[in-house]
């Protein structure tokens, strides 16, 4: 609660201040991404009463619980189909999906590719912390090859998805990747994504010191340094040529931004024939 003595936070109107303190660990990157999303929402000028946030399960999924908008914390992996139903039932809503990499791309991967294929008019923000944070740092579909997690103690035998490429191949019409250090670009991208008609996807790399960091002997400052030093900003890069490699480099930027009819537009056209 605000008192006369504490200065009012500029995002107070969009925060459920009665739910703060939040559950995120010290040094966690989710909060920064969350703030960028709120700044973007308030800067688009869209009516907050007509904006809904939907999330799945996981550390990032808790975001829905802190935002003072209509907010729905659903089941693991199912934020996108829930949001799809909501958007189709009330097209005037701006529907934002805010969730993590495990939620959106492992258990919820099927829903992601199909919503992108339909070009559903949703904005999907994925906080990628390279592992399952909430459950204590297990391997995800985004964990780098050979990285250690609590379920890959000798190193990850699998290779991760390249999310922008997956989104592109599936049909997303707006795709960007940033890290939580690139707040200005990130906020700009989220703003554009909110204004974009069609399926928008933004991947944001954010450190998870508690899970991924600890298992890989990377302090929070190490992770942030990697995100800063390895960043290669390449707007318009072909998603197939983007990389996410903590040693080789991390391609960032807005990669895709084009228009094609959304599900809603196609449906309206076809049924009126």
């Amino acid at each position: 609660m605000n008192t006369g003595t504490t200065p009012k936070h500029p995002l107070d109107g969009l925060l459920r201040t009665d739910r703060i303190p939040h559950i995120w660990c010290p040094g966690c990157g989710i909060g920064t991404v969350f703030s960028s999303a709120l700044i973007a929402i308030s800067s688009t000028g869209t009516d907050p009463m007509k904006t809904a946030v939907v999330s799945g399960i996981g550390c990032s999924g808790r975001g829905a619980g802190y935002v003072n908008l209509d907010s729905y914390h659903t089941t693991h992996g199912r934020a996108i189909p829930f949001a799809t139903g909501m958007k189709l039932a009330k097209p005037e809503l701006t529907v934002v999906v805010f969730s993590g990499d495990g939620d959106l791309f492992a258990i919820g991967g099927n829903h992601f590719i199909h919503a992108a294929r339909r070009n559903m008019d949703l904005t999907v923000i994925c906080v990628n912390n390279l592992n399952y944070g909430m459950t204590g740092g297990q391997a995800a579909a985004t964990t780098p090859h050979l990285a250690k997690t609590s379920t890959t103690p000798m190193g990850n035998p699998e290779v991760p998805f390249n999310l922008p490429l997956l989104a592109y191949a599936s049909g997303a019409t707006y795709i960007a990747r940033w890290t939580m250090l690139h707040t200005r670009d990130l906020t700009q991208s989220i703003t554009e994504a909110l204004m974009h008609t069609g399926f928008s996807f933004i991947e944001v790399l954010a450190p998870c010191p508690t899970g991924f960091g600890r298992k890989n002997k990377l302090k929070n400052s190490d992770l942030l340094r990697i995100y800063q030093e390895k960043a290669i900003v390449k707007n318009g890069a072909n998603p197939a040529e983007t990389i996410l490699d903590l040693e080789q480099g991390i391609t960032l930027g807005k990669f895709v931004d084009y228009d094609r009819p959304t599900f809603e537009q196609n449906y309206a056209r076809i049924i009126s024939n």
Partner: protein
Amino acid sequence: MEPAVLTGEHFFNGDVACAEGALAAGCRFFAGYPITPATEVAEHMSKRLPRVGGVFIQMEDEISAMAAILGASCAGVKSMTATSGPGFSLMMENIGLGIAIETPCVLVNVQRAGPSTGLPTLGAQGDMMQARWGSHGHYEIIALAPSSPQEIFYQTITAFNLSETYRIPVLIMADEIVGHLSERVIIPDPAKIKLHSRPRPKGRKDRFKPFQPGPNGVAPMAHAGEGYMVHFTGLTHDERGYPVMTAEAQAEMMERITGKVRRNLDKIIQVEKYRLEDADIALVSYGISSRSSQAAVDEAREKGIKAGLFRLLTVWPFPEEIVCELASRVKGFITVELNLGQIHLEVQRCARGMAPAILVGHAGGSAITPEEILANIEELAGRVQGK
């Protein structure tokens, strides 16, 4: 635009009658996934919904279909999905979410024989306990069982009304035989169809608590986009909708979501008593099996055996009080269902050893014949005679 209510006389199969019932009830969103023997519900909705101002979407699976109807309902639109066993299993996850976030919706299960892929084109009533307990955790659910295309039409309207009144997912537990059987269906004038809608908030938006129960135990529901800034979560939550991770909050929430059903059983449960007044042998049945049961009762009566039928239109919550009462005055129960004993467990429980209870059922794939039931009535009547 076409009329949503096709008043008149039709020849429909159960799946189509179900879809027409949904439209008459005001359903304007359907998300589904093709599956035998429920596909015709989706096909019919895909044709009709856009013509009455609604939306149909075929999702990537039944998990997403169930999630999508919850999302649509949270935005204020009456929503439905339809499936069969394998899809029903996938929907269990989000049925639980619907229960926890108290979101009205209707889910039709046109049952086929299982387990697993089972007999896709042949009927069974094997998912009755799954309907009751299939999603994890303890909860109450409402499930109806139609026995004909005409009845599924009306039950679909009832299902929407109950789901709206109590803010709860409602299940229609049909079966392949009813789903594919074509019969006369009379659709009344829209003015004759009584529709209910969810309780809605009044008063100050900033003071609104989305899960604070109203007079009948049901909280008014605010929709996305109305300015109430609600928070819905599948986590245990308080009346504000905020997660609270304590045993006390869990007990309170469970009381809210189960109490609204437990305290309104008399308004929810619908049953039919057929020749039961003086019956010695009470058949308990539902859905397609209740039709064979009724025929068997008539044949038994012709042979001088006092048989009657207790037909469940509402299967869950189970009408335990009535069956307990029956147990004190009949000489025996026969449960008739297309499984190896599911609702039968409830009948046995309520019979409390006061009257023997036997099962006439098989594993699915064909309807139970009146002859089979009659033979059992005769056998049981002989056994309990003079008792």
